[in-house]
């Protein structure tokens, strides 16, 4: 397992491009996106755009390896991905520090204070997570990313319910990550004002529902 040097916010080195080619993903058995392809190289960020329900979350989950793709291929370096979902995975009864420590231990990284300060949580360090406001929870969820020490971030609407200052804070964090040779794939509806980003609009990739062949029972039943 990756055990990076313990200087602040460590990031692995090595070739770590995420290459997605002609990917098709399904949700609940229904094809959602098809023909998605892009390459994400070190130091760059890719913004996923698209209306609600186009399939951003599904795409991210697939790349994170939580669900198998319908077709196409994803080539990502092993043990490189850190995924942040709609839900933050916080334990209500544990304090901010305990929550972070746990993830740091799981990812085998060291010290959590850099993450805390980066997300401006030092003041709340030993407040139980249930006593946080929506935005504070979210900030803690993002601090988790910093302790993973993983180079490739998959973020699903990270700025939800963050105020403008916190959004700026988050922007800096991502920028720093990119600067250290990390990469980020971000699904969001708002402007983040990051450096060196491309934007990928998913709307053209919506899976077409073509009329089924009557009486046609192939393996996919449609």
């Amino acid at each position, binding site marked *: 397992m990756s055990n990076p040097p313990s200087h602040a916010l460590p990031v692995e080195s090595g070739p770590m491009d995420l290459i997605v080619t002609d990917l098709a993903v399904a949700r609940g058995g229904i094809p959602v996106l098809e023909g998605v392809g892009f390459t994400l190289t070190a130091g760059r960020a890719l913004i996923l755009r698209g209306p609600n329900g186009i399939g951003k979350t599904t795409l991210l989950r697939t790349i994170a390896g*939580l669900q198998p793709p319908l077709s196409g291929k994803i080539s990502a370096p092993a043990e490189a*991905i850190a*995924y942040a979902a*709609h*839900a933050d*995975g*916080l334990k209500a009864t544990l304090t901010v520090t*305990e929550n972070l420590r746990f993830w740091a231990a799981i990812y085998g990284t060291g010290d959590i204070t850099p993450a805390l300060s980066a997300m401006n949580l030092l003041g709340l360090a030993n407040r139980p997570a249930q006593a946080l406001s929506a935005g504070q929870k979210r900030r803690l969820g993002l601090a*988790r990313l910093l302790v993973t020490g993983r180079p490739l971030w998959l973020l699903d609407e990270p700025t939800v319910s963050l105020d403008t200052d916190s959004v700026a804070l988050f922007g800096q964090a991502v920028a720093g990550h990119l600067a250290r040779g990390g990469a980020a794939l971000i699904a969001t509806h708002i402007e983040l004002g990051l450096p060196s980003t491309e934007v990928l609009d998913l709307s053209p990739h919506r899976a077409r529902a073509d009329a089924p062949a009557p009486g046609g029972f192939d393996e996919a039943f449609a």
Partner: protein
Amino acid sequence: MIALLVRDLRLAVRAGGGFGLGLAFFLIVTTLVPFGVGPEGGILARIAPGILWLGALLACLLSLDRIFALDWEDGSLDLLATAPVPMEAVVAMKAASHWLTTGLPLTLAAPVFGILLNLPAEGFTWLTLSLALGTPALSMIGAFGAALTVGLKRGGLLLSLLVLPLYVPTLIYGAEAARRGAEELSASTPLLLLVGITFATIALLPFAAAAAIRVNLR
């Protein structure tokens, strides 16, 4: 890995849950039984080992849904699945922490409750022994059931429906050992079989459970 165990134990304690509550439930069941079946000492003594085993089993059962459901709801199961730890290990740890917070206290407390149901003196050691050897299997099987039903809202009852038939062999051998002990017969055979089941489940079920979880996460 250990971190996970520590976290779960800490959660169990924080939540005011874990240790205390399983015991309390056990206590209450054992106290309710006399109300249900009437106070005649003779009958009670006869059924005591079985009832105690049933009580332990149900106390385990009630706390099963906690094994994965909470982590699923707050999304940390997703995150654990993408983390550099094998899902099998996660399952094993979860089962372990469940046993530490449920099975172990029950085992230690069982003799006390034995008194309540005037269990004959000979029975105590065997009861404790059988529980100590059997409850790990209960936790592991329970973890498997929880893995199958994670993500289904209100898995609770379905979970117990799935798990209870799986508990049958463990219960039979466990209770049999305890009863034979109480009646001063040799209880070694059922105990050996019990140990066999426990080891088998611990060796095999984590893989099944992990598979189930991966399926549920997609």
